[in-house]
């Protein structure tokens, strides 16, 4: 119980620290801090419409957050959720553009399926290279981000460009492929609900099934898992596949939400996903909450720029500080428990001798 409480307090402390540092930066830069933070708050919680917008904005973060969280659990540093999300969006776009004869439900299903496959494929290659050839997934996934981004650039400037638009973007997908609203008249769509359901499923998968047990075992000690008969390579590739699939699905949903493909479809969701996962201690249920927090910040950033004149990139600064704060809090906790352990048990053999004597 106490353990659980501590694991909740840690992210809270990190959030407070980042808020203070963020405020300091704004203050030094000469902004009205209250104004800026107020704008963020207002943008999200003024009325039903803004609240649902926040949910809408956190939807892609929820998916990439889950993607990064599961990869972290398996000790795979998937820095490529961004690229996987982009490929998911690309696959969904192609389905949405070319299967226009399909009825809405089927089309949406196919788009999401295609996006899931696209993301999984994009994660499969780095996962396979890591498992088979021990190639660092950090570098390959990052490179795949850039390749995916350029691939979208190629598509929206070439083959699927909507030439009626000034900026390069694709044609709009078929009308029936638009994501239905969960609350009519608001931007909250069913994709978000799907994300929440998946978070619960993922939680059970990680902590209540033997597959999750093996993923965690591989994540915590690959060698011991191997000795215990776990197929480590398969597990690593599998973890990457699930991770990529989640990010790709998030991309497909985002695409079905905004209806056309463009280079800027993701303002770095994949990277924010890292912050989301870390804040949630890679716990899928926690990701639901942390993704909402970052969605709230993202939603607020635009209005902060509009009303207080603070650049929206301030949110990125804030995220960076937050990750560092949490990473430090994690270490602080570890060294604390270590100190306690040391007190109890530094010379295990001596202790055992005493036990035997008793």
């Amino acid at each position, binding site marked *: 119980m106490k353990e659980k409480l501590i694991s909740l307090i840690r992210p809270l402390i990190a959030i407070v620290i980042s808020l203070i540092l963020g405020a300091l930066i704004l203050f030094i830069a000469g902004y009205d801090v209250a104004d800026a933070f107020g704008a963020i708050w207002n943008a999200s919680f003024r009325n039903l419409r803004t609240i649902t917008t926040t949910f809408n904005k956190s939807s892609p973060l929820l998916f990439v957050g889950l993607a990064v969280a599961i990869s972290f659990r398996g000790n795979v540093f998937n820095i490529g959720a961004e690229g996987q999300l982009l490929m998911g969006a690309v696959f969904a776009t192609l389905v949405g553009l070319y299967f226009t004869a399909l009825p809405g439900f089927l089309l949406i299903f196919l788009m999401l399926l295609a996006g899931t496959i696209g993301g999984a494929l994009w994660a499969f290659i780095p996962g396979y290279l890591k498992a088979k050839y*021990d190639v660092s997934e950090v570098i390959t996934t990052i490179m795949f981000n850039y390749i995916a981004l350029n691939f979208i650039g190629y598509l929206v400037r070439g083959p699927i460009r909507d030439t009626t638009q000034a900026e390069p973007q694709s044609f709009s997908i078929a009308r029936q492929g638009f994501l239905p609203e969960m609350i009519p008249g608001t931007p909250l769509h069913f994709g978000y609900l799907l994300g929440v359901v998946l978070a619960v499923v993922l939680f059970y998968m990680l902590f209540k099934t033997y597959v999750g047990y093996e993923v965690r075992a591989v994540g915590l000690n690959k060698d011991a898992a191997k000795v215990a008969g776990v197929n480590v390579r398969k597990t690593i590739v599998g973890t990457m596949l699930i991770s990529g699939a989640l990010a790709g699905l998030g991309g497909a949903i985002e695409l079905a939400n905004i209806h056309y493909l463009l280079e800027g479809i993701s303002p770095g969701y994949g990277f924010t996903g890292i912050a989301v996962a870390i804040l949630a201690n890679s716990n899928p249920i926690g990701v639901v909450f942390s993704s909402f927090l970052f969605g709230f910040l993202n939603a607020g950033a635009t209005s902060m720029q509009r009303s207080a004149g603070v650049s929206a990139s301030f949110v990125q600064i804030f*995220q*960076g500080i937050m990750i560092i704060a949490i*990473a430090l809090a994690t270490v602080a906790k570890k060294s604390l428990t270590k100190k306690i352990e040391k007190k109890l048990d530094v010379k295990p053999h001596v202790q055992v001798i005493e036990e035997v004597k008793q």
Partner: protein
Amino acid sequence: MDALQITNFLASSVRMAAPLLLASLGLVISERAGLINIGVEGIMLMSAFAAYAGSKIAGGYWYGLMVAMLVSIVIISIFAITTIKYKAQQVIIGAALNMFCAGLSSFLYRLLFYNTGRFDDGIAAASFPRVAIPGLSQIPILGPTLFNHNVLVYFSYIMVIVLWVVMNKTSVGLKIIAAGEHPKAADSLGINVLKVRYLATIFSGIMMGMAGAYLSIAQASSFGEDMTAGRGFIAMAVVILGKWSPIGSMLGALFFGAATALQLLFQITGIEIPRNIIMMIPYIATVVAVLAVSQNKVGAPRALGVPYEKS
């Protein structure tokens, strides 16, 4: 393709290689001391901005370079303290710094240079001029390729030699290698492992600062958001490709420089390939390169990414 085109291609390969080389030389030292820093991308970006701002505000490219190096040192200190002293996960802190720097550079760029509804007042930042080396630069092909660049390019090649000497011929090199290979052994001989790691990291920060400055006030004379476009990450690949040696990194950087300059080559040869496809080349080359060397990991420091804790 004529001699002029070849010369242009070679010369631009060298120009494109320079920022990669500067950054990867820094990384060679910090990685050999045992630290893996993916924050190099962000730190280069932030330095690129700092160099631009410094050059613009103080009115001189040397000021720009100084500011870039200072800012880079400050930011890499965050990495150093959190990972060396507090033993936080290096990849996580690196990722955080990338976000932080991307945000901060853009935030400050808008704050300082977005006044009249547009960036820039139309006046370019002062940037490093080319300095042709008398005599040598007159040699056909070789001259323009190697001896008609700005001083940062020359400096990067001097550093290749300097670092080769340091790593192979001095006791400082031994200490760095020991800190990255077997920190406990180093510690048992009275070497302050943490200090070696701090200094190696700070040094890498200085080099990253230069690499960033190169992008904004040598290769260009302006700043653009995300102008690094993955060059920091590619520099990490260069280190792997160069097997953690300064000379290997030089060859690796030239390889990637050429991969980037291919774009130019395609343009002048008139082959019609969409720009975005050409732009993928360095990234694909990176994946292929790290895959190619993955089978022979000789050279990778054993304690890379592992915090050192005194028992």
